[in-house]
C-alpha cells in the first residue's frame, strides 16, 4: 500500500444530516472526504477511482446492499481499503464484520472515529 500524505475517505450514509456530520468529521481530522448516499453509489465510486483509502459506512441503508454487504464486497474486491461501519440498529456483538473492520454504534463519538481514521491512514 502506498503511503499518502492525506488519505481519501469515502463516506457512505443515506441520511443527509448524518452524512454532513461525517464529512465534517473526516475533514476535521485532516482528510479529504468523498460522499455516497448508498452502497451502489459507493461501489461506482470505488470502481472509477483508485485513491480511496478508507470507507466509513452506515449499515442501514436502502438499495441493493446494506453497509455490511458493502463492507464484505469491498474486502473482497479492494482488500487494502480500510473499513469503518456504524449502525443505530445493530450492536457490535451482533454483527459479523469482515477482517480489519471497525464498528461504531450510533450515535458515535466523533473523536473516537477520527482517531480510528488517523490510525488507519497512518
Amino acid at each position: 500500500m502506498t503511503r499518502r500524505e492525506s488519505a481519501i475517505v469515502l463516506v457512505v450514509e443515506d441520511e443527509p444530516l448524518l452524512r454532513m456530520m461525517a464529512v465534517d468529521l473526516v475533514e476535521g481530522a485532516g482528510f479529504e472526504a468523498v460522499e455516497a448516499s448508498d452502497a451502489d453509489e459507493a461501489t461506482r465510486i470505488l470502481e472509477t477511482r483508485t485513491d480511496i483509502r478508507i470507507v466509513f459506512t452506515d449499515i442501514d441503508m436502502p438499495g441493493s446492499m446494506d453497509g455490511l454487504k458493502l463492507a464484505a464486497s469491498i474486502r473482497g474486491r479492494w482488500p487494502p481499503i480500510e473499513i469503518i461501519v456504524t449502525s443505530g440498529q445493530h450492536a457490535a456483538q451482533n454483527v459479523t464484520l469482515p477482517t480489519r473492520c471497525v464498528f461504531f454504534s450510533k450515535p458515535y463519538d466523533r473523536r473516537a472515529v477520527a482517531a480510528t481514521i488517523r490510525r488507519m491512514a497512518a
Partner: protein
Amino acid sequence: MDGVRPNAITDGAMNGSEAARLAALAGYRILDTPRERDFDDVAALASEICGTPIAVVNLIADGRQFFKAEVGLGVRETPLETSFCAKAILEEDFLVVPDATQDARFRGNPLVTGEPGLRFYAGALLKTQDGHAIGTVCVLDVVPHELTGLQERTLRVLARQVMKQLELRRAVEERDRAQAQQRVLNEELSHRLKNTLSLVQALATQTLKGVAERDAVAAFERRLFALSKAHDVLLQEDWTAAPISTVVGGVLSLHDDASRIEASGPEVDLGPKATLSLSMILHEMATNAAKYGALSDEAGRVSLSWTVEPGDDGPVLAVTWDERGGPPVTQPQRRGFGSRLIRTGLTGSGGVDLRYNPEGLHAEFRAPLSMVRSS
C-alpha cells in the same frame, strides 16, 4: 361402506360448524408433530389400565385422524372413514362399544368385519374450552370388553390431562410469540431512537460549528452518548429493568479512565427512570472527576459502591462515589448544569450528599429501593 357414513363429521355440527372445530384443532398446532413422551405416556397408561392391546391419543382432522401417540397400531395416521373416534366425537363426552359386532353403528365397519377384527372401543373426548371435540383418548381390542368404573374414569382423566397439556402448550407458545413480537418492536423503537439521537448530534454539531466554546459542544455530545448508552442497556433488558452493574458498566465504558473507577455492589434491578438518572449522574461524576477530581491526575482513583440498607420506610439503595489520591479538593464556586443534574439524585427528588473533603470528593446518593425499582 356398510352403514358407516364416509364423512360422519360434517353431519356432526354439534358445536358450531366443522370449520370452527377444525380451526380450534389447528390452533393447538399439534397435527403432524413428532411423537412426544408426554403423550406416549398417556397412551401407554391407558392401554395398561384398560387391559387393551391398543391405545391412542387421537386427533380428528379433516378427512383423517392423526395419532399423536399410539400403542399397538404402528401407524400415525388413518383415514376417517373407518374411524371409531369420528363417531365418538359426535357423542357427549364418552363412547364405549363393548362389542362392535352387536352395535349397529360399527358392525359393518371393515375394521370389524375384516382385519384386525376390532370388537371393543372406549374413548373419552378431547374437548376444548369452547366445546369443540378435537379428538379422543381411546382404547381398542380385538375381543369384547366391559369397562370398569376405574377404567372409564382413567380415560376421562387422561383426556382432560391431554387437553390441559395442549392448552398450556398453546398458552406458552402465544406468550413466547407475543414476547418475540414485543422484542422486535423494542428493537425497532431503539433503532429509531438511536437514529434520532444521531440526528440531534448532527444538528447540534452543524448548528454549533462556529461556536468558540468547543468544550460545551463536546460536553453536550458526551451527555448524548450517556443517554444513548442508558437506552442501550434498557433495550437489552426489554425496557423493563436493568441490573445496576450493567448500567454502571455501560456508562463508565464511555470514559477513558474507567479502569480507575472500581465498581462493586450487590445486584439490584433498576427501573427505566432510575437507569437513566443513574447513568446521567455517573456520567457527570466521571466527567468532573476527570476534569477536576481524582481522575485529573495519574494517581487518583474512584471507588464506586452500592448497598441496600434498611430505612424507615423500607430498604434504601445507597450509591457511594468516593474519590481518593487526586489533587487537593476545593468546593467548586460555580454550580453548573452538571452539578445540578447530579443533585437531582436517583429518582429526581434529591437524596444527594456531596462532601468536598480535602482528600477527595465523597458523594452519596440514596433512594428508596421500591422507587428505584419501579421508576
